[in-house]
């Protein structure tokens, strides 16, 4: 649970401002100026560099099981990954992940 509400509001407001500045940057201030090629090349990988690293510890050490590896969660993560990579469809991957999670939890009691 997030209990520190002052901190939560700080995050909400600063995240909103920061995100807006990123969106406004080139369209609003820098006009048609081009980013250098090396920077663009790195920016292309930001999303795939941050998100897998964020998820990996949550899958391997889930807080809900006291940090112990949980078969149903691990397999649900693999199912979501396989469906997402294969079908290139976000909704199908979310759906498949949850079906696997609930299915296994039901089977394992």
């Amino acid at each position, binding site marked *: *649970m*997030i*209990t520190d*509400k002052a901190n*939560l509001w700080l*995050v*909400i407001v*600063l*995240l909103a401002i920061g*995100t807006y500045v*990123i*969106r406004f*940057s*080139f*369209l*609003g201030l*820098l*006009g*048609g100026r*081009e*980013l250098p090629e*090396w920077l663009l*090349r*790195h*920016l*292309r*990988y*930001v*999303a*795939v*560099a*941050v*998100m*897998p690293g*964020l*998820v*990996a*510890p*949550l*899958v391997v050490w*889930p*807080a*809900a099981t006291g940090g112990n590896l949980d078969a149903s*969660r691990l397999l*649900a*993560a693999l199912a*979501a*990954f*396989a*469906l*997402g990579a294969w*079908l*290139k469809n*976000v*909704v199908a*991957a*979310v759906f498949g*992940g*949850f079906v696997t999670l*609930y299915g296994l939890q039901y089977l394992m009691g």
Partner: protein
Amino acid sequence: MTSTNPKSVFWAGLRAGSPFILVVAPFATLFGVVATEAGLNLVETMTMTVLVVAGAAQFTALSLMLDQAPTFIVLLTALAVNLRMAMYSAALAPHLGKAPLGMRALMAYFMVDQTFAVAVKRYEEQPGMPLNHKIIYYFASILPVVPLWYAFSLIGALAGKAIPPEYSLDFAIPICFIALTAPMLRSLPHLLAALVSVIAALALVWVPFSMGLILAALLAMITGAEVERRLNRRKFERQGA
């Protein structure tokens, strides 16, 4: 099909944006549910969703706050997830940069993955498109996406209170991130970047203040960019030979 009057441009934009309803509605609902589960009340959830309008960053921030990460790290990581929008902004500037400042300020607020992709595709297909048509198309493609993002976040937040803990919604964040990321792994550099990110994040989990994730992301970014550079160079050499 070329659109010649503003009305048909508007409908073309609306049509181009509508398939994303299927992605945005469930994703927004899930955000509302997860935020409520994380302890946010209705006002907090909706303020975040309306001010930030960036699902992946919102999930990132929630996840790190639940993990008690320091505020600085929460912001740095969530903003890193949004850095891709600097690319969108740069790609839209040649097309929309001549619009009035107030208009551009409004466009910046509504800049999301789906409508960016749709708008740039259209602008490149129709190079002669006049500025006012480009503006109409941009806002029309947003109409089926952003208002639904608000509405379904609200539905999710209201529903979230009614969902008992045995539904394991703690795992909604990982599943969502995996579902968002897996379709992006369309080339070898993307795949290797993701792999480095996973391995480094697990190996560096002991680093204090959630800094391990930032380090892992930097390593992964460098990996992706470097592999891409080498692959391109090899392709270039082959063509030259």
